């Protein structure tokens, strides 16, 4: 039509574009025609300029009306769509129930994980100076001596502020009036903490709060548990041998902060309790944080500072690389600490790897739900054919049908997302227990996450609806309405692929769950090489080391103490590497300097030679672990020498670090009798009483010194806590994946049974047995599940191998797990289909054939 008649006068292009896109379909051509006609008339009567102005004025005036008109019509279209959706839901309750339930569960899991991931990624956001704070790293750990902060502040003008944290290893018992309270995590800290970090103070004056000795600041919850309604500021709390005055209360610390604590005590307090720490370079238990200027290039400062620090070590130039590594100075941005896996000394760690894994798993569970939606929507095509046919006959275009089906899936997804939010609301608490921390969902009430969620819903809706929409809208009305032969519905193959994918995902998750569980069992039950239960350790300060032997003998006579061993070795995760002269070379090995009772106290097993003798071995004997023997390549170790010392024994390898690392070669030297670390093995029995006795002895031998103790057990358990949470979450996810996949299978099976009602009827009339029919119906699906194994096994093998590579000591990916997981999936699937199949097989053929 357009081509037959040449257009005489075109509207300005942009005006025409606006009109085309704002006027609703039916009246579009008419109105634009009018515009054009008047435009032409005006150009001829007046001029082009006038006509142009007139057109634009008209467009502006008409636009609101046209838009409203278009919207009104679209709205009425939508009400019609909605009506159709609700009718369909009523007609196919099971189908829609499975779709919506699956999607809701999938989305709820997704919301949880997304919230978790977002929360982790937004860690430490509350600190105003986040990008300016650096922690000093020293070798593998973050322990620094007390004077370092001041030294750096004096030497380097770019260090604006320094804050030292020193964990309070002491008792967690506090007393207010007549009541006892426990405060788990507390730090001794510099007063500048409130200038550098943002811990909003709700009561008290942050500038003055931790200036004086014996003052403390509590978090809101800690203060509430102790004081209830009373204003705590100015109250006096009795702690150990001293009285602390509460100087302020801060907001509770969000759980996605790197630095976590319940109370802060002024560092001055520690300095008064342990004056030997002042200016002491040998005890490195302080975490030092620096505040640098805005946009500061920290790498340059780091280089300058390390140069300066290394200059202080005598003979540094001659050190071996590994010994240098041990004291390597680094500035670690606060932003990087949260996910720092190995070196963090902070109590709380995020874990980047787990975040990645869970995001993937959540995505896969959602995929399983999406595939259900796609499968059931296309399988339901039979009951939809009539609607499509009639709509097409009445003049619907394919694009309109596409829109109609897409609208349906987006609408259902939106509904599912609402249900998902309800689930999230109800199950929030459980999820928080599962991940071991709580998330404040209100922090996501900003435009970006909200918009993100809406986009997500839209995306899921489209992903679920696109294929069914194309599939359904492609039906030819002539085929449908003629009614004759029912072509085998196409899309069967696609449905099969999706079902295979669903079960492959489920099987991978099942294998994953088993492997994770086995690995964690393995770690928990693995022989550490020493007995970690019931061993606690205490640290003596320099002034008390002289009395270490006295303390040891007094402790040994207590009935609740089974053994006492002294060492330089401090806590799990902190160690020291020396260069040992060996033959003509130097070999880097871990060294523990110990007393003769250490081996026995720790429960180390001697596999060759003997333990130290107190009388003859001092300074003249050493013991190796098996790894060291292997490293040095000695055939018959006993009698070998390092310098003047003789090798007297070999101990079985024991894990003095995390199982994430391999046991390294270790030398035990018996050099002196007094060491700062006192390891105590408790006799079986009442732990509280034992600690009470130890405290009493401590106070008698070292009056005025603060009693602090630690359990080996806790230190080791903390290392594996993360993995335990990981296992639980993983299990939950795979259970849900399997449930959703089976719901989909159930839906598909019922469609198939329905479609084959007549076939089953005829087969039964012709003498088919019930079991034969069950077999007929289950055969196809069982085949799919078996095929899914072929996809799942290699994938699971690769994924689990990568995960296990994180552990130095790990189980192998057990091959028998694969068929086992496959069998579980098959069994669950067969039960699901079987239920439907048995019902179909039991139906009376009379019912299905009577109406023909």
């Amino acid at each position: 039509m357009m081509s037959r008649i040449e257009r005489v006068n075109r509207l300005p292009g942009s005006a025409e574009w606006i009109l085309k896109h704002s006027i609703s379909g039916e009246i579009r051509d008419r109105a634009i025609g009018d515009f054009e006609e008047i435009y032409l008339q005006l150009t001829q009567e007046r001029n082009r300029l006038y006509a142009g102005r007139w057109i634009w004025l008209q467009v502006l005036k008409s636009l609101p009306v046209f838009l409203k008109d278009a919207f009104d019509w679209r709205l009425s279209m939508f009400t019609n769509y909605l009506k159709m959706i609700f009718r369909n839901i009523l007609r196919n309750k099971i189908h829609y129930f499975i779709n919506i339930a699956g999607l809701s569960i999938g989305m709820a899991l997704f919301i949880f994980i997304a919230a978790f991931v977002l929360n982790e990624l937004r860690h430490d956001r509350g600190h105003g100076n986040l990008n300016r704070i650096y922690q000093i790293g020293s070798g593998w750990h973050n322990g620094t001596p007390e004077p370092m902060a001041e030294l750096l502040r004096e030497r380097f003008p770019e260090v604006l502020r320094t804050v030292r944290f020193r964990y309070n290893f002491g008792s967690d018992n506090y007393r207010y009036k007549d009541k006892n309270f426990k405060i788990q995590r507390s730090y001794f800290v510099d007063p500048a903490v409130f200038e550098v970090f943002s811990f909003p103070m709700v009561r008290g004056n942050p500038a003055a709060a931790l200036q004086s000795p014996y003052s403390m600041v509590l978090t809101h919850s800690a203060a509430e548990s102790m004081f209830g309604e009373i204003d705590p500021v100015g109250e006096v709390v009795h702690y150990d041998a001293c009285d602390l005055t509460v100087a302020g209360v801060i907001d509770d610390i969000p759980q996605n902060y790197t630095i976590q604590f319940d109370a802060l005590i002024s560092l001055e307090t520690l300095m008064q309790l342990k004056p030997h720490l002042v200016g002491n370079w040998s005890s490195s238990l302080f975490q030092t944080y620096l505040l640098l200027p805005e946009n500061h290039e920290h790498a340059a400062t780091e280089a300058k500072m390390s140069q300066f620090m290394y200059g202080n070590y005598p003979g540094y130039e001659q050190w071996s690389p590994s010994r240098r590594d041990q004291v390597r100075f680094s500035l670690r941005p606060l932003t990087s600490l949260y996910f720092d896996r190995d070196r963090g000394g902070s109590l709380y760690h995020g874990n980047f790897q787990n975040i990645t894994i869970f995001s993937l798993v959540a995505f896969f569970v959602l995929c399983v739900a999406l595939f259900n939606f796609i499968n059931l929507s296309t399988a339901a095509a039979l009951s939809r054919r009539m609607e499509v046919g009639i709509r097409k006959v009445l003049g619907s275009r394919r694009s309109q049908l596409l829109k109609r089906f897409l609208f349906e899936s987006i609408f259902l997804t939106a509904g599912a997302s609402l249900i998902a939010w309800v689930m999230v609301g109800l199950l929030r608490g459980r999820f928080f227990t599962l991940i071991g921390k709580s998330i404040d969902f209100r922090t996501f009430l900003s435009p970006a996450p909200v918009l993100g969620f809406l986009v997500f819903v839209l995306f899921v809706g489209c992903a679920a609806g696109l294929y069914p929409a194309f599939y359904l809208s492609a039906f030819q009305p002539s085929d449908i309405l003629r009614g004759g032969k029912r072509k085998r519905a196409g899309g069967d193959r696609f449905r099969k692929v999706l079902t295979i994918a669903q079960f492959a995902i489920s099987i991978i998750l099942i294998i994953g769950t088993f492997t994770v569980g086995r690995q964690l069992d393995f770690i928990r039950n693995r022989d550490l090489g020493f007995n970690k239960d019931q061993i606690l350790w205490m640290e003596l300060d320099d002034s008390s080391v002289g009395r270490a032997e006295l303390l040891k003998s007094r402790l040994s006579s207590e009935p609740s103490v089974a053994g006492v061993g002294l060492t330089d070795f401090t806590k799990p995760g902190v160690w020291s590497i020396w260069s040992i002269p060996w033959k003509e070379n130097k070999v880097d090995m871990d060294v523990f300097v110990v007393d003769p009772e250490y081996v026995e106290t720790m429960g180390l097993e001697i596999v060759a030679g003997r333990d130290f003798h107190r009388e003859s071995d001092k300074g003249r004997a050493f013991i190796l672990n098996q790894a060291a023997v292997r490293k040095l390549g000695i055939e018959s170790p006993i009698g070998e020498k390092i310098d003047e010392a003789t090798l007297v024994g070999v101990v079985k390898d024991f894990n003095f670090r995390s199982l994430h690392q391999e046991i390294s070669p270790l030398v035990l030297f018996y050099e002196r009798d007094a060491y700062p670390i006192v390891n105590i093995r408790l006799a079986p029995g009442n732990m509280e009483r034992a600690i009470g006795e130890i405290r009493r002895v401590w106070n008698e031998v070292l009056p005025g010194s603060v009693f602090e103790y630690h359990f080996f057990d806790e230190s080791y358990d903390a290392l594996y806590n993360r993995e335990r949470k990981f296992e639980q979450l993983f299990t939950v996810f795979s259970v849900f994946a399997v449930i959703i996949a089976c719901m989909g299978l159930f839906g598909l099976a019922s469609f198939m049974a329905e479609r084959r009602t007549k076939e089953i009827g005829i087969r039964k009339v012709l003498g088919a047995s019930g079991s034969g029919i069950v077999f007929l119906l289950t055969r196809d699906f069982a085949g799919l599940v078996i095929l899914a194994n072929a996809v799942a096994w290699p994938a699971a093998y690769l994924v689990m191998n990568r995960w296990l590579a994180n552990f130095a000591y790990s189980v192998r990916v057990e091959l028998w797990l694969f068929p086992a997981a496959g069998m579980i999936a098959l069994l669950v699937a067969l039960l699901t289909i079987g239920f439907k199949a048995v019902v179909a097989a039991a139906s009376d053929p009379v019912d299905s054939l009577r109406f023909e």
Partner: protein
Amino acid sequence: MKLLSRSEEIILMAVLNLKQEAYGIAIRSYLTEATGFEWSIGAVYAPLHRLENKGLVVTRKGDPVRERGGRSKIYYHVTPEGRRALLKLKNINENIWGRLTIPDFKQG
């Protein structure tokens, strides 16, 4: 039954009065003359669209016209329902005006 809006009523009367010639531009200039102010094209078409969907007017397609970029003129005709609706409005209008007893409005 819901009454027609004022603009729908006026436009329906315009279509009725223009008989065979009621297409967009004709209706618009008729309205401009009759009411004394200018009607935007949108203000004409939106009510027309509603009238059409209520079944009060129907359309007839004319031949393609060069001046309209090859588009056809679409002529509107009032349906019997449209006529009934107008008559009903007329009655209502007369009724309302007739009941008015304020002197200023009496002479009309």
